[in-house]
């Protein structure tokens, strides 16, 4: 019988979870190996020490959790109420970007440039045109 097995059995014996046969074997082994008795005392002391540990979340844990759940419920309800919204937005934005691209491209073809002047249709204007316009507009 391996020595390690007895050490593992000690844990089971503390829970009264050993079969009668194993219990007897362990009792016999304990008489032969004083280390086992020492280990049993240590297990008991360790159990006592660690069972005293208690941990707590910060105050307000229930509220924080319920708030998160509520916000997730609202999100999922919205998704259920308007199931087509998200995909529709996707297609609208894709179509919008495509239309913008076509507009810019056709503008480039017709004006030959993408400058601000060509956008406002003033690319063929000179300063003289502007001065004469301002001078003789009345």
């Amino acid at each position, binding site marked *: 019988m391996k020595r390690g097995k007895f050490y593992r059995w000690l*844990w089971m014996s503390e829970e009264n979870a050993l079969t009668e046969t194993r219990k007897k074997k362990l009792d016999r082994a304990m008489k032969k190996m004083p280390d086992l008795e020492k280990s049993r005392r240590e*297990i008991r002391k360790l*159990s006592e020490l660690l069972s*005293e540990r208690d*941990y707590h*979340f*910060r105050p307000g*844990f229930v509220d924080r*959790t319920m708030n998160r759940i509520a916000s997730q419920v609202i999100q999922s309800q919205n998704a259920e109420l308007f199931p087509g919204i998200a995909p529709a937005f996707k297609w609208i934005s894709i179509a919008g970007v495509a239309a913008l691209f076509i507009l810019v491209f056709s503008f480039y073809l017709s004006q030959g440039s993408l400058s601000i002047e060509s956008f406002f249709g003033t690319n063929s204007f000179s300063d003289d045109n502007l001065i004469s316009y301002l001078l003789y507009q009345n």
Partner: protein
Amino acid sequence: MTSKKIHNDWELVEMARQGDMNAFAEIVSRYEGKIARTVIGMLGETAEADDVGQETFIRFFKSIHSFRGDSSLGTYLTRIAINLSYNVLKKGKRTGSLVQIWNEEEKEMDIVDESQDHEEKEKGEMIDKAIQSLEPGFRAVVNLRLVQGYTTKETAEILGLPLGTVLSRLSRAQMQLQGKLKHLI
């Protein structure tokens, strides 16, 4: 005078399934301590611990219809909490040491409450440090068996491990903890 009926876990689950949020809040309140012991025991008093604690209940809320009651509610929630804690540890989101986010608050409380036994507090911190120094697999076993008082068999069931593995981990963890806590044992 109004008397509030105390429902058992299963009744609360059924009520929560029908959409009673107060019933679910009662479940959270009832198991907050148990989940805190599991999660803080695994991760230390970190920001992640609070998040994982909340996430445990959120996961349960989402899967409440699939809870069959094969195991007790406490065991079921503990299993979720352990798995989520493992995920956090695996992702390496933790900084490694025991980072106490509300350490400052506690220190302030210490100053106010002069009757607090500092020796006991130091002892507790020493124990926490020793537990945190264990590998996650060992830490989970120690947390469930020694801190929370589950039996070895229950610990094995929660962790989905063979009984022999749990016993072996307990023996090895015992040796490591003895070394670290020799002046307390």
